[in-house]
């Protein structure tokens, strides 16, 4: 281990870690939004909402995130979408994780006991009202953990935006491996930051989960 080298360059990794955090947070927010909309769509009784939602989930879960990212960043200009690497990274990752988050949200909603919906309908509430006032509040308790799992997968997944030259942790690690020929040191250095980010994030998820989960 070359600690002298690590002492000299760790600050660049710390800066890159901030970019990783920024990408993670923004794409998680985008993913949650898309996931929520798609989940509502796929649970809808209207096929015009249901089919596009199902297609979105199937396509984005059925193909690699890397291909989706390349299609957006390199193929985008051909269809009039010009994005900076950072923007393409956030949008690409967010749209991808949204498909997985949709499944987590949908899973939580359909695990709410059916009698709840029926009771709501009997009381004269409409479908949308039942969803908003009865089903979703109960489902929300159950979706924290799976959404947390999705988000942690996404944080690790942000590494792929290094391939479109976004200056985040993995890009920095790759650059220093090429210039110093010290792959082991650079791996450990980048790992420290990834594990720190994930540890803090999962602590937050556990806290939220502990607060909203039903006592049993």
């Amino acid at each position, binding site marked *: 281990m070359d600690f002298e080298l690590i002492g000299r360059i760790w600050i660049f990794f710390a800066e890159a870690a901030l970019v990783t955090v920024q990408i993670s947070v923004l794409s998680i927010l985008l993913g949650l939004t898309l996931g929520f909309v798609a989940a509502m769509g796929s649970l809808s009784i209207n096929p015009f909402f249901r089919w596009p939602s199902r297609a979105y989930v199937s*396509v984005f879960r059925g193909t*690699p995130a890397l291909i989706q990212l390349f*299609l957006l960043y*390199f193929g985008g200009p*051909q269809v009039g979408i010009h994005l900076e690497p950072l923007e393409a990274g956030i949008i690409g990752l967010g749209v991808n994780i949204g498909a997985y988050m949709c499944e987590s949200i949908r899973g939580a909603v359909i695990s709410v006991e059916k009698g709840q919906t029926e009771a709501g309908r009997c009381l004269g509430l409409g479908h949308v009202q039942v969803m908003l006032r009865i089903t979703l509040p109960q489902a929300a308790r159950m979706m924290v953990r799976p959404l947390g799992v999705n988000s942690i997968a996404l944080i690790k997944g942000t590494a*792929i935006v290094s391939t479109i030259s976004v200056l985040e942790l993995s890009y920095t690690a790759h650059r220093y491996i090429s210039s110093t020929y010290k792959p*082991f040191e650079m*791996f450990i250095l980048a790992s420290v930051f990834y*594990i720190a980010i994930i540890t803090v994030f999962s602590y937050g998820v556990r806290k939220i989960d502990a607060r909203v989960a039903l006592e049993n």
Partner: protein
Amino acid sequence: MGLDFSIIPEYADLLLEGTLWTIALTVLAVFFSLAGGVIFAVAQLSRHAFVRWPFAGVAWLFMGTPLLLQLFLIYFGLVQIGLDLNAFTAGVIALSLHFAVYNSDIIKSAILAVDKGQHEASRSLGLGRLQAMRKIIVPQAIANVTPALGNMMIALLKESSLVSVIGVMELTLSAQRAISDSFRPFEFYIAAAVIYYVLNLGLEMAVRNAERRSARYR
């Protein structure tokens, strides 16, 4: 520049070759990651701390870091220590190790969930600890978690696209080759996506089939 999908057949050979390499990569990595998953799981449940700790340490490190970073470590790191592997081998090793760690997490909790009486019974029949593990406990554990392992293997197929970064000529990189020749990224990434989608469907069917068959061992 408008879109022109009629150019794709010109590069069909290249894409087909890439598809075959992706399949080869996935099949090898599925095999080694399942075998490795069992080894990692059993080792982490060992009575001996000197067996348990190294495996638990690697598992912890690999669970917390991106596959891409591990790919860099293995590809450049092995060269560093004098093992000049080709990119394909390094790709198989990295994918196998990455997914072995995730599989071991699933298998480990499945082993712990197997009824304790099974272990005691096989021990009283005179089997050693490892033998009991191998012949009695692990087969039952695996049968219980075939769906979870199957989902991992479906993820593996998609993640295998990352090895294009270290220069493995699989589907993603062959699409990139076609692009650098034709300057048509949109068309070829769509083509690659379609092929991945079809492979993914095929794998999903195989996994569901395996699930049904493994249900017999429960």
